[in-house]
């Protein structure tokens, strides 16, 4: 039994997102002025549901503009969702006032994509890692805080931490910076990490180390992790489950291995075929999708993927498919939103 399975058996998930929707009103160019004139609805997230358990890593995968970052922002209420619910450890975050949301924020932490931009260049490492403690009024005396900072840095793989405390970000490599950013989250002892493309700005040679660190944190530290990535290979390697997003929806979700080796949604199949393989002898051709990545201002009726789908039938133009267990699924928890699967 894996950690994740055990956690699942223990009852409720740590994070449960139900029918989350986040719409933006945007102004259409040249459509006049005045209240409501020319306003259109951009459906960035349009009915997304998923769960994450303690000790589990879920990868949200999709192309740019599919809404994966908006999901994270909506979970944290950095942007207000239009509908749906976000239940964290039994608490409905949507019902909380800003003041009551604040103490919860230390339990949900974000890891940003770019450690070159997320760290204040004027601060020393110890100040950067101390900042969240001061903001939340935690950590006790100065000496106690120092201990907490050192522990967080070492947990993030920067040991001995004393070597790093007085450095500035520019004295660190990209991988070290990202570890400082992770320590900044760990210092608050979070239960859920939301990592938005945590390695895409880093060099190939250090990516594996950061991903292995996240892996350790969830296995040994029982953290739940939602990792956003556009890289299916990374997701397949490090996540327990993969959720594939397309135009504001999850179109397929399941155990990482099954989604990659037994994809059921035509979009997932196309996406997987387009991933370049490491072995030059693996020359399977990419099934390249025709048409443009669609516009969330203009979501197609019926199945939102039908205009680009290589196997769409007439019915796909009318039926908006729900996530359900496909006939060819071999593992529990594998679901796809396609009437043909």
């Amino acid at each position, binding site marked *: 039994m894996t950690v994740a399975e055990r956690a699942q058996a223990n009852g409720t998930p740590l994070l449960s997102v139900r029918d989350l929707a986040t719409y933006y009103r945007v102004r259409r160019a040249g459509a006049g002025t005045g209240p409501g004139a020319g306003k259109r609805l951009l459906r960035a997230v349009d009915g997304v549901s998923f769960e994450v358990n303690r000790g589990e890593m879920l990868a949200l995968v999709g*192309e*740019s503009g599919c809404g994966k970052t908006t999901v994270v922002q909506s979970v944290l209420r950095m942007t207000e969702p239009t509908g749906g619910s976000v239940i964290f450890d039994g608490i409905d975050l949507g019902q909380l006032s800003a003041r009551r949301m604040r103490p919860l924020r230390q339990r949900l932490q974000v890891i940003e994509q770019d450690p070159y931009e997320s760290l204040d260049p004027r601060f020393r490492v110890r100040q950067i890692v101390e900042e969240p403690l001061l903001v939340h009024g935690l950590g006790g005396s100065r000496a106690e805080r120092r201990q907490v900072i050192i522990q967080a840095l070492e947990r993030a793989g920067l040991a001995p931490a004393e070597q790093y405390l007085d450095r500035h970000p520019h004295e660190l*490599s990209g*991988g070290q910076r990202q570890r400082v950013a992770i320590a900044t989250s760990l210092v608050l002892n979070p239960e859920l990490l939301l990592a938005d493309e945590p390695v895409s700005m880093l*060099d*190939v*040679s*250090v*990516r*594996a*180390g*950061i*991903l*292995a660190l996240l892996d350790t944190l969830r296995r040994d530290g029982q953290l739940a992790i939602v990792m956003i990535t*556009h*890289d*299916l*290979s*990374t997701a*397949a*390697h*490090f996540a327990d489950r993969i959720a594939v997003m397309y135009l504001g929806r999850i179109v397929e979700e399941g155990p990482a291995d099954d989604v*990659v*080796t037994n994809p059921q949604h035509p979009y997932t199949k*196309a*996406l*997987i075929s*387009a*991933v*370049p*393989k*490491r*072995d*030059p*002898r693996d*020359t399977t051709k*990419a099934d*390249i*999708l025709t048409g*443009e*990545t669609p516009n969330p201002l203009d979501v197609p009726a019926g199945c939102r993927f039908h205009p680009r789908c290589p196997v769409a039938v007439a019915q796909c133009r009318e039926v908006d498919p729900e996530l359900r267990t496909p006939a060819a699924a071999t593992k529990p928890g594998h679901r796809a939103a396609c009437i043909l699967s």
Partner: protein
Amino acid sequence: MSLLDVRDMHVWIETRRRRLHVVRGVNFSLEPGQRLGLVGESGCGKTTALLALLGLLPPSASVSGQVILDGTDIFAKGEETVAPVRWRDIAIVFQGAMNALNPVKTVGWQIAEPIVRHGLARRPEARRRAEELLNLVGIPSAAARRYPHEFSGGMRQRAAIAMALACEPRVLLADEPTTALDVMVQAQILELLVRLTGELGLALVLVTHDLPVVAQVCDQAAVMYAGEFVEKGPVDSLYHDPRHPYTRLLFAATPDLYRRDSVLSIPGAPPRLDQDLAGCPFQPRCDQAVDRCTTEHPRLLEIDGSRAAACLVGHRESEAAAS
């Protein structure tokens, strides 16, 4: 005689306090239709090597070596001999090329521009040629009258490729041409580059940190480390039988969609480039280093005719196998 022959190319860059030896004696040759990948970590000199070929480095850089295009050394008289070749015979596509299009000119106008500039045709003829080029990269010719903002990212990158092809160059340099693009668009652009080398006999040099991209696109690849080629050969043998530990570790650091072998980071960091290195530049990070590696600088030596590696340990093994 090869189409392009690069011999012992060095690049130094002068900074306020130091002189960095960024490219340290690089050799390669290209035949028409050949696709060569240059891979390595950031800062290894791969982009600098490309820019040097076109004389596009800043004034703080100095370059030495020979770059022989069709029998003529284009480095012989510096800018005087590089300028006529730039874009005419050797063109380049950058990572952010799609964002470098002029927003107030139509895409067709911009593709026609180098044709007119190089005196290859007058404007009306160049315009027709621009439409053909758009067709070649998979964009309807009518789109020549559109502006860049009307194009998607993938289309703009195609337009940038069309612009690079405007003067019918024989060598195309591509610096991370798909890094900013989504996987589906990346697949389209890579397929286009492969098709163009086949159809036009264009030689391609593809710079990327993404090994799977090179594995799928190129026939030959060179692995760069601290300004040197440490291994060079057919992509198939680099992946299946790497002779330099760095090549092996780079592949091991890259997750693959299907293979569940553990993905490992490479400890340590590349060496500083402001000094000469006594031993092997990779030695401090190498998992196979022996005593000799700290004192002896390995040369890039040929192994079984088709490939080469700069590793003392690898050499010894292949010598042992040969005897």
